[in-house]
């Protein structure tokens, strides 16, 4: 057949497209489990970092991280009921995937959707650190829209279920050098000891660039904003408002503090 006939061109293009798509698909599907294992390990590393189980997660080997992770109790929380869920397996449940499955997907009412999520899973995986029977820390996954990307992270609360023990950002795609200051360990360290709710149990925690005098009551609810990263930090503030508001963990934290809190 003549190489320059339109029919030949269509044939060559079709065959190339088919063969290449098969090649790419096979590579993606067969390698996915291996990539997945690495992503899980990365996630575990972030969780161990905020758990306070280890001072220096960066220098720990993969096995040590997994070992430390074993000390945490993994539970599923039904956010609407604010209670633990026992009908699904917390080890295999993936809230991010579940947010797209009809069985678990919950549409977030527009007026509550301050973090621009649209939908979330009805269940979230939380991690509890106990010393014997007493609860020491609760680690809660959080996410929300930043400037360019969805920011994912973990927030660890002390046993009073109100004081922040640690924050870590596990995934983000904010502007390099500007919005990605949220990864800065010094800034993340400033979250430690800040409180979420006031006596009336309304969310008083704020990120702002206002000058707040140290050692005042206001300061204990306040994290400094960072110049230049306003939109990203508004995103972080919004996701805090969502996840610690009525549609997030608020009910669960209240229930948990009644049963276990100190």
């Amino acid at each position: 057949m003549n190489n320059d006939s339109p029919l030949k061109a269509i044939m060559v293009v079709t065959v190339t497209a088919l063969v290449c798509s098969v090649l790419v698909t096979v590579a993606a599907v067969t390698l996915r489990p291996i990539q997945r294992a690495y992503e899980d390990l990365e996630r575990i590393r972030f969780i161990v970092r905020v758990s306070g189980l280890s001072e220096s997660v960066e220098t720990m080997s993969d096995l040590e991280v997994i070992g430390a992770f074993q000390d945490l109790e993994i539970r599923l929380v039904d956010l609407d009921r604010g209670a633990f869920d026992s009908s699904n397996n917390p080890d295999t449940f993936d809230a991010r995937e579940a947010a797209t499955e009809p069985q678990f997907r919950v549409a977030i009412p527009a007026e509550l959707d301050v973090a621009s999520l649209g939908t979330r899973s009805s269940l979230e995986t939380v991690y509890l650190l106990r010393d014997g029977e007493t609860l020491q820390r609760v680690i809660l996954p959080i996410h929300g829209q930043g400037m360019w990307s969805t920011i994912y992270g973990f927030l660890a609360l002390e046993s009073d279920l109100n004081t922040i023990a640690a924050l870590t950002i596990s995934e983000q795609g904010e502007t390099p050098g500007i919005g990605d200051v949220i990864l800065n360990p010094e800034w993340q360290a400033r979250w430690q000891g800040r409180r979420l709710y006031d006596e009336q149990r309304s969310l008083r925690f704020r990120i702002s660039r206002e000058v707040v005098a140290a050692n005042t009551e206001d300061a204990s609810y306040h994290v400094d904003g960072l110049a230049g990263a306003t939109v990203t930090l508004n995103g972080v503030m919004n996701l805090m408002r969502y996840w610690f508001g009525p549609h997030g963990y608020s009910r669960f934290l209240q229930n948990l503090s009644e049963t276990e809190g100190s």
Partner: protein
Amino acid sequence: MMRARQALLNPLIDENPVTLHILGICSAVAISNSLYSALVMSVALTSVLVFSNVVISMIRRHLPSSVRIIVQMTIIASGVIVVDELLRAFAPEIAQTLSVFVGLIITNCIVLGRAEAFATQHGVALSFLDAIGNGLGFSLILISVAIIRELLGTGSLLDVGIFKPVSEGGWFEPNAFFMLPPSAFFIIGGIIWAVRSWKKEQVESPEFEPISVAELESD
């Protein structure tokens, strides 16, 4: 035999894709601040190049000229995606460091350039050797630049200390400039200058005659 030798060895210095054709500068500038990334990038680019050259050479007699480039791009892009997936599965940390630059191999002019200039006109074996040669030519420059940058920028190579930095009680003051992309421009420029001083035939003839000052004044 002679042609095979040429296909393999010429791209190393005489027809080096980076220093003679000035191709692949984007990745050579971006990833050359650490020797390890440079090594992984070299392997990645060479594999894509071998894959695309061999496949395109195999189908060269059935390639309609009207859709030639898009078919070549599809093959190159598929090769790059496979390499990217492999890196993310087996070397996820380095895949994160290289980030978009693995994907950008698709637009690396060396790959399409060799496909278009060589693989569409030569047999499979020669195209394979040409790919290896050009991959090595690119790697040679990338790795040389990376050695200079990492050594002068940090005082170590592959995390092995060579020069002891002042901060650890040694004598070497790491020059942070070498960790920044612009330094690669100067180093590549220096290498091009050195190669062209040695191999005068690589010097391009000027595109226009510079106007002399005397001529300007006479106007």
